[in-house]
């Protein structure tokens, strides 16, 4: 675990001079490591001269910061109203059943993490999902199975 400390410290130091540096730093760490390892709060707090509680508070406030290692791919499924109007709830049931996981969980083979998301801005092509950073629209259960395979 401590393997990450130096990496996190380097990233934090790189961005430390930015006004309001905390979010840019946390994004940099998550984008480099894939998540925010346990030692993130203490390391970043030290660099920015904040308390660990301050950093922990920020990490836990934002839905898209994650503190556990994600699967190889992350499937974000939109749960907002426009997608609901086009069957997003049934699609979500299908996926959770197929992958045998619930929201915020990762498949046992470590391949897919499932995250709810509230709007991908693809509301005229609902229902929408995003796999890592690739957006998909007008998604059916069959199409999603293909994407997942």
């Amino acid at each position, binding site marked *: 675990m401590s393997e990450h400390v130096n990496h996190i410290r380097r990233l934090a130091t790189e961005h430390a001079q930015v006004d309001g540096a905390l*979010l840019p730093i946390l994004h940099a760490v998550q984008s480099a490591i894939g998540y925010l390892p346990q030692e993130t709060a203490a390391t970043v707090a030290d660099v920015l001269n904040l308390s660990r509680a301050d950093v922990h508070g920020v990490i836990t406030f934002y839905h898209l910061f994650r503190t556990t290692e994600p699967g190889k791919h992350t499937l*974000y499924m*939109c749960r*907002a109203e*426009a997608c609901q109007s086009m069957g997003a709830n049934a699609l979500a049931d299908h996926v959770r059943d197929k992958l045998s996981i619930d929201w915020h969980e990762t498949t046992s083979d470590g391949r897919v993490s499932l995250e709810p998301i509230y709007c991908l801005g693809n*509301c*005229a*092509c609902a229902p929408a999902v995003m796999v890592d950073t690739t957006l998909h*629209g007008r998604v059916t259960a069959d199409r999603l199975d293909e994407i997942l395979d």
Partner: protein
Amino acid sequence: MTDAIVIHVPADSAARSVGADALARAVHAHATKNDWPLDLRRPGSRGLYWLEPLMEVEVDGKRVAFGPLSPAELDGLIDTNGRADPSHRAYLGPVDDIPALARQRRLTFERVGVIEPLALDQYERHGGFGGLRKAAAMSPQEIIDEVKVSGLRGRGGAAFPTGIKWQTVLDTPSEQKYVVCNADEGDSGTFADRMIMESDPYLLLEGMAIAGMATGATRGLIYLRAEYPQAIATMNDAIVRATDAGWLGGDILQSGRAFTCEVRVAAGSYICGEETAMLESLEGKRGMVRFRPPLPAVKGLFGQPTVVNNVISLATVPTILARGAQHYQNFGSGDSRGTLTLQLAGNVARGGLYELPFGITLREVIEDLGGGTASGRPVRAVQAGGPLGAFIPPAHFDTPMDYEAFKQIGGMLGHGGLVVFDDRTDMGALARFAMEFCAIESCGKCTPCRIGARRGVEVIDRIRAGDNAPANRELLGDLCQTMIDGSLCALGGMAPFPVQSVLEHFSEDL
């Protein structure tokens, strides 16, 4: 045939989400196979999303459209002389004559889907930077007066007059002022901000630079949601190119005024679309709502005077300056001037972006433009203004779309998003979702929102389970009123609106 065949395939993320990239690859392969000289361009989307992927072929200087088009349908679409086949299944005719586009009045979205997003020369050739050039020769007060005359009101949802906000920032002395662009477009059913950022990014930068010149702000920050990776990449790229070309930076157009821009990526919190929570987030803190006053225009980012405007508000300013406030002011209805960038979404046959003067009725939008539901079933309700907006029953569909008329029926236009639901919709479940969403997204600062939303979910569950329903319905009504009266910001203060609208108009479901 010697001239290259010019073909446009959108690179907007929504178009790509339904196969635009595969189509572009197929066009390329097809051209190679048939030995066409091809000039393939990737503009943004026209916003006619039911027709995506929409391909346009230039014939005699006119863009002829085909859509929705699959890669398998390219055979025979263009003959060896570069003529497009009008008998093709997906043939739509000249793109500007497609009724859904011909009916619109595109001012802010004039270039969206027309030009390639990052091509500075195309932006300029299509009128870009005309507003900034005018602004550079005007005094701050003259710019603000022009914005005031235009009647522009904040397009993010609150509809506050933009010119008055700018005036406050101009009149508040400070060494450092900021322009913050709210690009945290979190409302379901809205995507206009995304389209501008992906398809016409320099327009937003131009609007921000004008806001800077008008108020004395020299730094701009775009608070952009992490859910929009393509918009983030495009805006970052646009900032570098615009800065290199001198449109941003130290002394813009020899005006003696400086303005720089940067993107700050959000992290998935809906409440950060609320302006004071956004400022907290930009300062590196939890997105907790601030008490107002002081207004952000007086004490905003890092305690300094700050313009906070939505993407569409800022993207509308260049047009106002370039064409004159009076031109913009001529459109609209009542106190809602100019155009509304309507986003039609959900269960609707022809969903997309419709820029129209204020005043069109909801019925015209849903039936004439939208073509009814995608499922072909009757419309049960429309939610206007995002997750905090009321569900509107068909009985109110003759309401004209302007800020005041919507207020009268207990609704709000918000950011211009409309989500359509058909007659199979369980409205009780949507009322529950409104409370659930508020509970998930509450910043937790005030009790009515933090606790009220959770209790709201529980009370709705009891009603739906038939547990002492009449008494619990009354309790839910009280709870809604408490949240409306006692919450610090619009999240807790408006999340009850959809619930109340279900109790009022769809009581058979709750």
